[in-house]
């Protein structure tokens, strides 16, 4: 049962939050923080067990012949840990950010439920369970996207749902079809479809359906349309959507799909991995180029996300062990980098009402710590050593070269250059003198500032410790190894 706790604890936190109602802010904050901390502790303990080789699992019978089950393998725990730990950080930020907002009970309740769903996606032991949590994630995010209730938010929410449910439908059909074809298929490193022979066309279609389903949340071009619009959500939500839970659920689904459902071999043999790789490569370039032209800060970050998520997809689709590990590592690394940026964007918007790149001048002088953190994240994203981004990109690049796809390497390099192209102007603009009346060095609310510093620090730490056990990069290598026969160079 312990293995359910990463799902149940946030869910319970959400229920308590709803029950507390809008008035009791302190109690709500306490409950949420305690929930986050306890969940983190649980996840960490699971990680320790998992490193020791003990994979916990549990299943509840639901449908005939199908169980609703979770298992705590390293791969899933990586995503789970990212989500849970960053939940705690985001909570602190959100408590500051939402200080005067309305409907906070609803906000924090659904927030907690999102994390529960993300943890469910992470730990799901089979595609059906994964699908179930995937859809719950869509549903619980919707109220967060439309939180403000403005017509713009409602429109964005409608678009988000349209994409999410469309993807969910594809996923549903794919998963059902697969189950009809192959019976219950629990995730197995290296692939679970060994029993299926023939049915090549069906398997290709199913792969397409599943990839499309995950691709929606993974903002795989051309399924990315919802992401920029969803920016209307409050900053903590944007962070959660774009950095942690939602989009990562998509790419995590891709990782499970390629590595543990079809398996790298079958994926390559069917040719579907290659197709996915081409699509992802296109997404990287497309996202980066479009990001260059975005005036709105959050939109620029969003397109950056589109590009970065495609990194992960591309890495997965290359079917080479190192690239796969790099992709998994980038899942964690990108989370901390991008969350830093969204926190910053949120702080700027909330404290200074700055939303456009053109409004940035003077900001660096006004909020030096915040902007420094942003800079760290930006450089990390561009792959400057020794920051976190570099570590994952290195793995990806090596994997690409090794896996016989040198063109992918080119894509990575080009995109790194483009990242510099869309990040550096932000920094330069913020350093220009500008007209922000308050005294220099006045940062935002400390409850918003410290989380930014923390996550920025994490991008440095992850980069520096990339070779050490327990760091995301090492973890990713360990977790991905079984899918490639356990061998890791």
């Amino acid at each position, binding site marked *: 049962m312990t293995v359910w706790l990463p799902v149940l604890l946030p869910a319970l936190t959400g229920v308590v939050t709803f029950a507390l109602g809008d008035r009791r802010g302190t109690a709500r904050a306490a409950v949420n923080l305690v929930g986050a901390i306890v969940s983190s502790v649980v996840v960490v303990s699971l990680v320790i067990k998992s490193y020791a080789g003990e994979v916990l699992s549990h299943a509840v019978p639901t449908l*005939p012949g199908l169980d609703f089950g979770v298992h705590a393998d390293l791969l899933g725990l990586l995503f789970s840990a990212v989500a849970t730990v960053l939940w705690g950080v985001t909570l602190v930020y959100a408590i500051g950010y939402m200080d005067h907002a309305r409907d906070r009970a609803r906000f924090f309740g659904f927030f907690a439920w999102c994390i529960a769903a993300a943890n469910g996606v992470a730990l799901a032991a089979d595609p059906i369970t994964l699908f179930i949590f995937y859809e719950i994630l869509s*549903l619980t995010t919707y109220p967060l996207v*439309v939180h403000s*209730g*403005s017509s713009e938010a409602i429109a964005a929410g409608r678009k988000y749902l349209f994409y999410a449910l*469309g993807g969910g439908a594809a996923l*549903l059909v794919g998963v059902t*079809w697969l189950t009809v074809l192959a019976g219950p298929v629990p995730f197995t490193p290296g692939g679970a479809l060994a029993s299926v022979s023939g049915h090549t066309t069906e398997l290709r279609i199913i792969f397409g359906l599943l990839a499309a389903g995950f691709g929606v949340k993974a903002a795989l071009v051309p399924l990315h349309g919802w992401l920029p619009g969803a920016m209307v959500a409050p900053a903590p939500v944007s962070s959660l959507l774009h950095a942690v839970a939602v989009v990562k659920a998509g790419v995590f689904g891709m990782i499970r799909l390629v590595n543990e459902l079809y398996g790298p071999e079958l994926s390559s043999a069917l040719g579907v991995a290659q197709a996915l790789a081409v699509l992802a490569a296109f997404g990287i370039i497309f996202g980066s180029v479009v990001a260059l032209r975005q005036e709105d800060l959050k939109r620029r970050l969003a397109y950056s996300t589109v590009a970065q998520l495609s990194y992960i997809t591309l890495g997965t689709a290359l079917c080479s062990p190192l690239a796969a590990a790099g992709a998994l590592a980038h899942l964690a690394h990108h989370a901390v980098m991008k969350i830093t940026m969204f926190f910053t964007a949120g702080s700027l918007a909330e404290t200074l009402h700055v939303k456009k790149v053109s409004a940035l001048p003077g900001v660096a002088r006004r909020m030096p710590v915040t902007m420094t953190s942003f800079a760290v994240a930006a450089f990390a994203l561009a792959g400057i050593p020794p920051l976190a981004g570099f570590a994952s990109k290195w793995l990806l690049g090596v994997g690409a070269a090794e896996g016989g796809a040198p063109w992918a390497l080119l894509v990575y390099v080009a995109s790194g250059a483009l990242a510099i192209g869309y990040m550096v102007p932000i920094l330069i603009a913020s350093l220009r003198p500008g007209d922000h009346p308050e005294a220099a060095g006045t940062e935002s609310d400390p409850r918003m500032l410290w989380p930014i510093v923390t996550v920025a620090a994490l991008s440095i730490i992850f980069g520096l410790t990339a070779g050490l056990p327990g760091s995301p990069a090492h973890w990713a290598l360990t977790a991905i190894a079984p899918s490639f026969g356990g061998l890791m160079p």
Partner: protein
Amino acid sequence: MNVVHHLPALLVITPLVGACVAFVAGRRVAPHVALATATADVVLAVLFAARVLAEGPFRYRIGGWGAPMGIDLVADGMAALFIVLTSIVGLVVTVYASGYFRSTDPTAYGHGLFWTLWLFMWTSLNGLFLTGDVFNVYVCIELVGISAVALVTISGGPDALRAGMRYLFASMLGAMTYLLGVALLYASAGAVDMATLSERLVPDTTAATGLALMVAALVLKTALVPAHFWLPTAHASAPTPVSAALSALVVKGSYFVVLRLMLDVMPDGYLPGAATLLGVLGAAAIVWGSVQALVQTRIKLLVAYSTVAQIGYLFLVFPLARNGRDVLALALTGALVHATAHGLAKGGLFLAAGGLITRFGHDRLAEMRGAARAVPVLTFAVALSGVTMMGLPPSGGFAAKWLLISAALTSGEWWWAVVLVVGGLLAAAYMFRLVAILIADAPAETAPAPKPVRTEWLPLALTAAAVLLLFAVPLISDLAAASTTLQSAGVTP
């Protein structure tokens, strides 16, 4: 006497006695009588389901004659499932109604009779679910029809009366057509007992015509497109507890008989086109009902059209059921899960809609903005019911859709899966339109102040039950396996 041996009979007699007592006792005492009856019925229903699960299907011979001379009640898993569903939704509706009818116009004389009419409806539904006799079905559907019409018209406004009339005429048409079918069937096979019929039926014109007429009539009573014309106004004009009961339970009554006729009574290969036709109509219902729901401007009509759409799913079981016993088991279980999930969710949704109408004093959707802040629990109930309607996990609706899609893909008739997926997306479209309105920010002057509606937890309880139904699916699956249909098909649990 041992109560356990007579559960089928008692399930019909208890609400009937309750109805009589509530009538005799007068309007003050009637709510208490109804509540007591409802509670007793829940207990009986659960005992009944437990017995069916433990011992498998059995027949209860009324009068000791046994079919074909007498009337047999068929106690199987399918019946037990619907009876339990009825009892749960019924109990909630009863509790809700005790608040609802207290708060509305005391000069409406009919309101004092609500309890009696409602218990009569309960009797007739239980009777319908239990009976194994096609003529007895006729009497039961007349009981259902009359009580439903009376409940629709109970508050007596022009709209309700008009809707009630339309409902009554649809009921009459349906009941008469059904009876004609029974007449032909009896003329051909010389029996009205379902089990006897299924043994004796030979593929002759008369029996085929009879069965076709009966199914057509029941389809009309179930409001499958294109015979749905009476449903939206009737369900939307009725008092809220009645709407809930109608949408959640009453349409299931006639559907249940269609299940029995098509799957139990009809021999294999009989009326080959009928199953396909029902499936096609079901698909049409899904699309048409959803599209209509999408353009409604009044909340109850939206919900009622959603019922039209959701009914469509139930009929997809028939084309699928012809593809061997494994697919039959999948499809039937799927249909049963869907009926249960929809019953719970739609009951809750109507109660929630009623709460919103009470809260806002009107039913115009466009003016319900800001409800999420004023009545968060009701909004949440609406959203949860939406989860089931869309068939999203972890709801019972999802389980149903999963099973039906599995059945479709297993049988190779993948186009039904397409229908199911499209239906889910359409449901999402209209449900999120509703949710978006409720959740939208209201201008300060029109936004209602937060004020709890007394019974708002009831709809939430029902819709939450619909969502958590996923975890009861093994139970439903067992009940389906204990149905005469699957038992005779040789499916083992």
